[in-house]
């Protein structure tokens, strides 16, 4: 799993940080690895993602996936975001992720999607996203 590209994103994460003017912000964790990721999003008037950033820490897979995913998301509409599934993230990573590590890989995607749902009022009480085994 630990191809050069993954390690590179882990060492030098893209879009790492926080956005003080975020339209919405959401946090999630993967309790089995202790991975934690917060995603901040600034939308434009078409509900497309103008800027995105993530922060948090955890294993290389979760952090690299967040780095690679956020790079892809810029420009996407929230509807397009919701249409992504786990295979899209796995394709992005470009390596075979073993079943027990898939939770790590999809954490950022799930956080972004849940954040958008909460923003749309579709998920109400959810305070934090959790990826279960």
């Amino acid at each position, binding site marked *: 799993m630990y191809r050069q590209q993954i390690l590179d994103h882990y060492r030098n994460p893209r879009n790492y940080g926080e956005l003080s003017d975020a339209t919405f912000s959401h946090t999630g964790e993967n*309790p089995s690895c202790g991975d934690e990721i917060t995603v901040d999003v600034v939308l434009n008037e078409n509900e497309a993602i103008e800027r995105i950033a993530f922060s948090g820490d955890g294993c290389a897979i979760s952090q690299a996936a967040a780095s690679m995913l956020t790079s892809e998301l810029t420009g996407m509409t929230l509807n397009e975001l919701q249409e992504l599934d786990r295979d899209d993230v796995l394709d992005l990573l470009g390596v075979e992720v*073993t*079943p*027990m590590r898939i939770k790590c890989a999809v954490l950022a995607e799930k956080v972004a999607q849940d954040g958008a749902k909460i923003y749309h009022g579709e998920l109400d009480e959810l305070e934090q996203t959790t990826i279960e*085994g």
Partner: protein
Amino acid sequence: MATHEQTSPLDVAVLREEFPVLGRHVGGDVTAPGEGADDDQPLVYLDNAATSQTPRAVVEAMTDYYYSYNANVHRGIHHLSQEASVAYEEAHDRVAEFIGADGREEIVFTKNTTEAENLIAYAWGLEELGPGDKVVMTQMEHHASLVTWQQIAKRTGADVEYIRVTEDGHLDMDHAREAIDENTQMVSFVHISNALGTVNPVEELVDQAHEVGAYAFVDGAQSVPNRSVDVGAMDADFFSFSGHKLCGPTGIGVLYGKAEILEEIQPYLYGGDMIRSVTYEDSTWEELPWKFEAGTPPIAEAVGLTAALDFLDDVGMERIQAHEEALTAYAYDRLTEFDDVTVYGPPGDNRGGLVGFNLEGVHAHDLSSICNDHAVAIRAGDHCTQPLHDTLGAAASARASFYLYNTRDEVDALVEAVDNARQLFA
């Protein structure tokens, strides 16, 4: 006896080949397990309601687990642990499919039916029951539920009431309607009685429970082995059975619970694998079903159970049921031919695959011993339904119980042994 079909929907001779133990001889020393030189009579195994025999496919699946991918599950990243985890988790899916549950979150592996009953009694009953509340059971309950709810009720101050059994071994449904009242919080009953063979009207009882806002817990230990069961269709809130009674291994049982109910219930056993996060001060719980599975689970046994369900589905549950019903009706007819034999329970053509009986003037233990002298394995005792036996006026009864590999010849051997006991004690 000519009224029942002579041919089975199963190719029993071929099936028997899958069960090495059915080729055993018995009769010699019992302190050294396995066939010895002095074991010289071919075994007739008619104690399937106690435990069924185990086909090669099940034993081989477990051997394969131990020899090629044995590892602890859930949190392991290494190859073997992933293989074991996938197999263990998929075993839940397989069970869900087999009994018509919605998915793995509704399937909790326990060690047996008894623990499934206790799990709900402790996790829900001990917390929620109190004075004024009532648990309704039946007079034909197995000790697994009877003693459990009786004791939990005692500890919480709740009442217990037992739906009466009629002369012909059915539940008195008028009494059921009375007993299941506004105070009732739980109705727990056997799907099929392991002592009488009665098949209870599950849907009706579940409906009655729901009408008064009570939960319905169906003990399926004697039904899942020999008929197609759909917990969704019967709308049971909880349902339980054991692996060892349906061609599976010992050491594993199943609790089914509706996801929305299990979601609300607090955990029962505490420990590893059932927590989400732990501090020295407090803990939070994993998702279903893991919240109810503390510690290293029965992994090999889950693999064996999966193989057992595959085996049964390959044979076909409808055909298994038809085979058992024919055999049971035949045994019922033959035994009732003896004037001095009392057969308990409903008539022969609508019952689970077992016949409980007594021979006048002969203690059931003696009867069972004499059958054993004929290499016919039946059970004698109260079959964990002691209060029911009190109402039957019998300290004990003999019970022959059948499964997919039994034959009419074996029933004949039983009848011959019983006849021999009659003559001995005449």
